C-alpha cells in the first residue's frame, strides 16, 4: 500500500533533531516478506496451486541468476498470475506459515517493524492483517469492481528504506534475495537471512550479518 498509505502521519514517533549522548537510539526494522517472514515463497506457492509451477520456476531461476532484473521479473510474474481471481490468490496466501520467532518479534515491536516487499498489496492483504505492522509493497490498479487491471508501482526497496531513515535514527534491514540489495545499501545494518535457502552471494557481500534461522536472527535483533 505504498502509494495510498498515510502511515507517515499515523505514528506518534518524532525523530529527535540531535541525538544526545545516552539517549536511546530509535531503530526501525525492515523485513522482507517472502522467504524471510514466510516459510515459503508466495509466488511459487500461488503458481503451484494454479498449475503454473514450471513457468514460475523458470522465471525464478532466471531472476535468482541475475539474468532478468527484479522489476521485469515481477511484471512477468504478475502477468502469469493475474488470470487468477484475487480471492483465490488471497486464500492461497493466507495459508502461508510464518517463522514463529520473527512473527513474535514483530508482534512485540509492531511500531518499529515494517515489511518491505516486492509483492503486490492486494495479494498480501491477508498477511497485513495477520502481522498488523506497516507494509511497503508494490501496488496494483483495480477497476470499479475491485478487479486487478494492471501494476501501478513496482517496489524499489531503497525508496522505502530511505523513507524509514527519515523517520528513525537507524535502519536495520533483513532479507534473503537480490531485491534486498538496494535496501541493504541504504540501511545501517544489513542482515542476510538464509533460513529457507542460502542467500545469494551478492546479498551476503553487502551484509553485516548472516542469520541461518529465525531464532538467532531475533536474538541479534533484540541486542540492536
Amino acid at each position: 500500500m505504498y502509494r495510498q498509505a498515510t502511515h507517515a502521519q499515523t505514528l506518534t514517533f518524532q525523530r529527535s533533531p540531535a541525538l544526545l549522548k545516552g539517549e536511546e537510539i530509535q531503530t526501525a526494522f525492515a523485513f522482507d516478506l517472502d522467504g524471510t517472514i514466510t516459510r515459503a515463497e508466495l509466488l511459487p506457492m500461488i503458481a503451484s496451486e494454479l498449475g503454473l509451477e514450471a513457468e514460475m520456476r523458470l522465471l525464478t531461476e532466471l531472476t535468482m541468476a541475475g539474468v532478468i532484473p527484479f522489476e521485469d521479473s515481477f511484471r512477468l510474474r504478475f502477468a502469469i498470475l493475474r488470470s487468477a481471481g484475487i480471492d483465490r490468490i488471497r486464500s492461497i496466501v493466507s495459508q502461508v506459515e510464518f517463522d514463529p520467532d520473527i512473527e513474535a518479534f514483530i508482534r512485540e515491536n509492531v511500531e518499529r517493524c515494517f515489511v518491505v516487499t516486492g509483492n503486490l498489496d492486494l495479494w498480501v492483504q491477508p498477511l497485513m492483517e495477520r502481522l498488523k505492522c506497516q507494509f511497503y509493497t508494490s501496488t496494483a490498479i483495480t477497476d470499479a469492481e475491485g478487479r486487478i487491471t494492471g501494476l501501478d508501482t513496482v517496489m524499489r526497496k531503497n525508496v522505502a528504506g530511505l523513507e524509514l531513515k527519515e523517520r528513525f535514527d537507524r535502519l536495520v534491514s533483513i532479507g534473503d534475495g537480490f531485491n534486498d540489495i538496494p535496501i541493504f545499501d541504504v540501511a545501517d545494518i544489513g542482515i542476510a537471512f538464509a533460513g529457507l535457502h542460502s542467500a545469494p552471494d551478492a546479498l551476503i557481500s553487502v551484509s553485516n550479518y548472516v542469520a541461518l534461522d529465525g531464532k538467532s536472527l531475533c536474538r541479534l535483533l533484540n541486542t540492536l
Partner: protein
Amino acid sequence: MSPVKHAVIAAAGLGSRLGHGKPKCLVEIEGVKILRHLLSLLSDVEDVRVVVGFEEKEVINEIRKIRSDVMVVRNPGFRATTTLHSYELGARHIKGDCLFMDGDMLIEEASFKAFLASCKPNTPRLAITKTKTRDAVFTTIENGIATSFRRDDPTEYEWANISWLPNAFFSDIGNTAVYEQLRQFLPMETQELIAYEIDSEQDLSLAKENLHLFSLSALAS
C-alpha cells in the same frame, strides 16, 4: 550455571602460516573440522557468533551443518585488519561480558568447561596454557594474576587466545594485535586450560601427538 551467555569466535583469517589454502577453522583433524570441535565446546552458550572473512561461504555452509542458531558476523576487511577487529565486530551491540576465542585451536573439554564455570560478571579473565612454541604471547603470572605480556623470552605460560572480557575493552581499537589492546587492562585474573593453537604445520603435528586430550572421535561422522 556459567554466566557465559555470549561467545565470539574469530575465524576470518587466511591461515597463511599453516598454508592449507582454507580457513583454519575448516582444517580437519581425525575427520573433525576445528569449527565443529569448538562449537561443541560452546553448546551451552546461547549466543555464539562466528566472525567470517576468508572463504566465508565455505565457513557459513559448515556452520549451517553444525548449528543453525549461530550468528555469522562478516568481516569484509579481514585481509587488512587483525583479529582485534574481528573481536570488535563480533561483540558489537552485545551488552556486558563476552567470551572471545580464536577459531584455530583444539581445547581439552574439562579444562575449558572449568574456565567457563569460573567466569564472573565484570571480572576480566584470561585463559592461559603451558607454553608450547616460541611464537606465542608469553604471560607473566604472579599469584594467578597476569601482569605482563611479551613476545620474546618465553615464560612458563602463554595466553591461550581465549578471554572473558567486558565488551567495552574493544570500544576504541587500532590495527594492532589483540594482546596489545589487552595490555592496557592488565593485571587480569587467569585460569589455566589445556589448549593447542594451530598456526603452523609444527603446531598441527604437536596437536596430533596429543589427540587423546580432545575427544574428537565422538564428533567424527
